């Protein structure tokens, strides 16, 4: 390729150099731009939100280009169960469960501790059924049941058949690529957002990977660009800047969940929101934590109420690790009674098989194995047992229900507790029409939309379970609807 460098190529390269070094995206000389591709809509990201937007745009006759950074499409959505909370879904109605959007919004607000934008929550709740019906029409398949998840006032979660990838993503992708107006570029990363002089977004610069080289292209989007780029859970440097506690932890998300798109959005003037707020997950159920005593491996001491919520627990673990400058994750020590209290008795066997749980004949052995201070551990356990007996945790105010017992029956068991990064609530701020708001003017940036995890401020402190999917659905759909509406008016 290098042998036949065209003028276009040359220009491109110099332009990029110019952009990245000295110029703002908006200051480009429009007339000098030569587009490699011209479409109506560019959808960045092939996850659920992006797929929904693409389908809507394409089926309404807009020429749609979907670009995906990695080799495969689907992103983190392929890894998720995509269970979704839908208000007044057919299943809910069939089950005769009374639900209304305000109730879901309230639940979300509760989980978000008020940091969430209520109108967004309400918007999601109101449009959830519509969005769901949209994907059902496109082939998404759901179980004939309604699930009651924690944190929800009523049973409103519906579950895709055989998980998110099979039940939702595959039928939607199948539908999407059956449409003529759609084209897909994989291994293509969205970079600088190109604006004209009025601040209107007119296109995008992309970087196309090859086996040996990469090249920059410019794509023109006549109607608009939708950013459905997901979160940045895997972007270690960026997330550490936002929240130093999460420097070392691993994530359950797709490996390409990086913050690059977010950075270009911010560069384009978007308002970053809640970038330090993150949602954690544990590989073991939360409800078995409370039966044991959690110990920091460096200080050999107890540091948290084991029964606290997953956000709090994860935060406490990370705090404790950070304070004591250790990379070692804490352990929970169970005795036989503790292990027997697990609600799901199949768990224990599964854990033994996967070697998640370790068995010890005595506390001493545990200390030896983890290089703990024996006296300290013994003291901690004695104190803990005293708290259990008295029913009052003087240190961390743990609530001792009747089935939490003191730790004294050998053999003992330990599980290493690793919080994992599951979701980043932070992103760019959008209005209820999925338009990205400009930081300076506080008005929507024309033709720039965002949906899904790429947005911020919608969920707040913690995202309510099974509410990410309706977020993606609703805002993916709304963004597409807005573009289509505007395009058709012109």
């Amino acid at each position, binding site marked *: 390729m290098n042998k036949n460098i065209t003028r276009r190529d040359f220009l491109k390269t110099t332009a990029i150099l110019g952009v990245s070094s000295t110029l703002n995206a908006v200051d480009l000389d429009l007339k000098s731009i030569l587009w490699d591709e011209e479409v109506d809509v560019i959808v960045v990201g092939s996850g659920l939100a992006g797929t929904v937007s693409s389908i809507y745009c394409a089926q309404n006759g807009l020429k749609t280009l979907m670009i995906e950074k990695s080799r495969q499409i689907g992103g983190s959505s392929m890894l998720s169960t995509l269970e979704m909370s839908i208000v007044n879904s057919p299943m809910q109605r069939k089950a005769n469960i009374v639900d209304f959007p305000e109730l879901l919004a309230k639940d979300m607000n509760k989980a978000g501790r008020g940091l969430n934008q209520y109108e967004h929550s309400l918007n999601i709740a109101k449009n959830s059924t519509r969005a769901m019906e949209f994907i059902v029409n496109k082939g998404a398949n759901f179980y004939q049941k309604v*699930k009651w998840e924690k944190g929800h006032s009523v*049973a409103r979660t519906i579950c895709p058949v055989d998980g998110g990838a099979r039940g939702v993503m595959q039928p939607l992708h199948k539908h999407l690529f059956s449409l003529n107006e759609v084209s897909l570029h994989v291994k293509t990363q969205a970079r600088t957002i190109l604006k004209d002089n009025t601040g209107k977004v007119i296109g995008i610069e992309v970087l196309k990977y090859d086996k040996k080289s990469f090249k920059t292209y410019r794509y023109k989007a006549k109607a608009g660009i939708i950013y459905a780029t997901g979160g940045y859970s895997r972007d270690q440097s960026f997330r550490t800047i936002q929240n130093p506690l999460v420097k070392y932890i691993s994530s359950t998300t797709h490996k390409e969940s990086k913050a690059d798109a977010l950075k270009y959005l911010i560069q384009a003037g978007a308002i970053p929101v809640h970038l330090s707020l993150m949602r954690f997950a544990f590989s073991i159920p939360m409800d078995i934590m409370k039966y044991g005593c959690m110990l920091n491996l460096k200080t050999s001491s107890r540091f948290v109420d084991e029964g606290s919520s997953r956000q709090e627990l994860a935060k406490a673990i990370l705090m404790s690790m950070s304070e004591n400058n250790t990379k070692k994750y804490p352990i929970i020590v169970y005795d036989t009674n503790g292990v*027997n209290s697990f609600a799901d008795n199949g768990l224990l066997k599964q854990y033994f098989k996967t070697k998640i749980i370790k068995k010890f004949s005595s506390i001493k052995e545990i200390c030896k194995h983890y290089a703990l201070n024996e006296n300290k551990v013994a003291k901690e356990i004695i104190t803990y047992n005293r708290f259990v007996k008295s029913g009052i945790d003087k240190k961390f105010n743990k609530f001792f229900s009747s089935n939490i017992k003191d730790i004294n029956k050998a053999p003992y068991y330990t599980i290493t507790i690793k919080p994992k990064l599951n979701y980043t609530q932070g992103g760019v701020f959008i209005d209820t029409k999925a338009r990205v708001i400009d930081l300076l003017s506080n008005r929507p940036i024309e033709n720039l939309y965002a949906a899904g995890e790429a947005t911020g401020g919608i969920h707040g402190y913690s995202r309510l379970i099974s509410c990410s999917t309706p977020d993606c659905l609703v805002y993916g759909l709304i963004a597409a609807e807005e573009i289509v509406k505007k395009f058709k008016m012109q």
Partner: protein
Amino acid sequence: MKFKFTTISIKSKSLIFVLILISVLFLILYYQNKMSHKSYLNQVETEYTESFNNYYASFTADMLKYYSTQVGYFSENKILEHIKTNNNQALMNHINYVFNNLKPTNRYLKNISFIKVNSKLTIDREEIRFDEDILKTYNPLISNINNRDRNLVDLVVKDDEVYYRLLSGVFQNYELLGVVEFLINAEVLLESIKNFDGSKGFIFFKTYGEIFKKYTHLDDKEYSKFKNVAFKNINDNKLFKINQQYFVVKVFPLLDVDKTIIAKTIFFLDVTDKNISYEKSLKKTIYFSVFLFILAAFIVNYIFHYLITRVEVSENKLKILNINLENRVKEETDNRMQIEIKALQENKEKEQLLINQSKLASMGEMIGNIAHQWRQPLMQMSAILMYLEAYGENKKLTKDRLLTKIEEGNSLIEYMSSTIEDFRNFYQLDKQKEQFFIEDSLLNALTIVNASLASHHISIDIKIYDEQMATNSYKNEFSQALLNVISNAKDVLIQREVKEPCITISLYREEGKNVVCICDNGGGIKPDIMNKIFDPYFTTKHAYQGTGIGLYMTKMIIEKNMNGSISLNNRESGACFKITV
């Protein structure tokens, strides 16, 4: 071999025999031991089956009973109202409440569902399902639930697990509003049985993928230990050895409500203790047997050795004896002969001595008899001499008177001289046999003893029944013999001082032989000494009177020299000697 066997020594043969006996005994012991253990295992197994069946029945009954009472949670008016008004969220809340109440004490409780038959809904603590298929699986069961039989227990495979499904009807005014389903992991059975009798085991079943799924309260190590054994021999009730532990394996089918086998349980009943003790005892018996065997071999060896060497020694001795026996016999007989010859010689010498003695005694007697014979003539001679002296003093001695007296004296001397002659002849031993009359011989004897008898006033009565009794023999010896018998009678008569002593002598012939019978009236001989009367040196008399040889000599003379016989018997008056020649 046979030839060889026969060549084995007696010792080895008997040793082998005894040892074979002992080994057979031990084999029998061993076999008995083994059989008893086998029967023990059989018994264990049958008992185990029985106890399992009983236990299983009571286990399911208890479970059903327990959970059917928990249905009371759903009979509250409020809840019934929720059910009726289809307030499913409230019902769900309630199910969660019930579940959270029950779970801490029922570890294996998996789920609680409420099945609304009419609205085709299944509500559990997390979900509300409306799948027609699920209802289809319930329908036949629910049709079994009525006002009378409100509860039902079933076994079901779900999500790759086996569960006990307990269905219990919720009624209001005899109207079935719904059914409560408790799902309990079948592992509860394993746990329960483990607590009951300590037997370990697992449940296995086939899922759609034809894969054996298992539940077990064994940890992974134990499971992998048991797995191979159990699945290989799934229908066998055998004894298994796993890591030096012994187990009786028993497979029980678990049936659902239609009596189809949903899963099977395998239990491993630990019989290690029993088996180890059995093996120990077996080892002990073997050790003991070997020990006894060796001991017996030693003992038998030594005892047999001892006994057999003794036998062999005596056998050898016998052989040697046999070889030397003839020589011995010869030597012995020679010795005997010599001894006998010696004895004969001695006897002869003795006899000679006796004869001499008897001769001396006869001499004494002869002198005594001569004295008796001569006393009177000597007195007459003295009287003659006294007559001659008296007539000489009185000068009346005439020539006639003197001549007469000398004549008298000469006849006396002549008489005495003839007496001497008689005696000399009498005691002279006969050189050769001669023909003589018994009567003459008797008279000769009487001549010798006559004077002695007269001096003791012993009368002689001679009765001769047969005349001319003659014999060819030694006359003087016979006379001496008679004399001895007469002298003996005389001595007895004198010794016993018998009134009117008398010796009767009868002569007669009997069966062609001559018999002299000499009887006295001295009262007879005591029967106890009758046999000894002819023994030499036997006497009842005082030492000065007799030598004890007389009758012995008589017997010798009669029996040996004359081929006659002498016998003795008692008659009324006294003893009677019968001499037959």
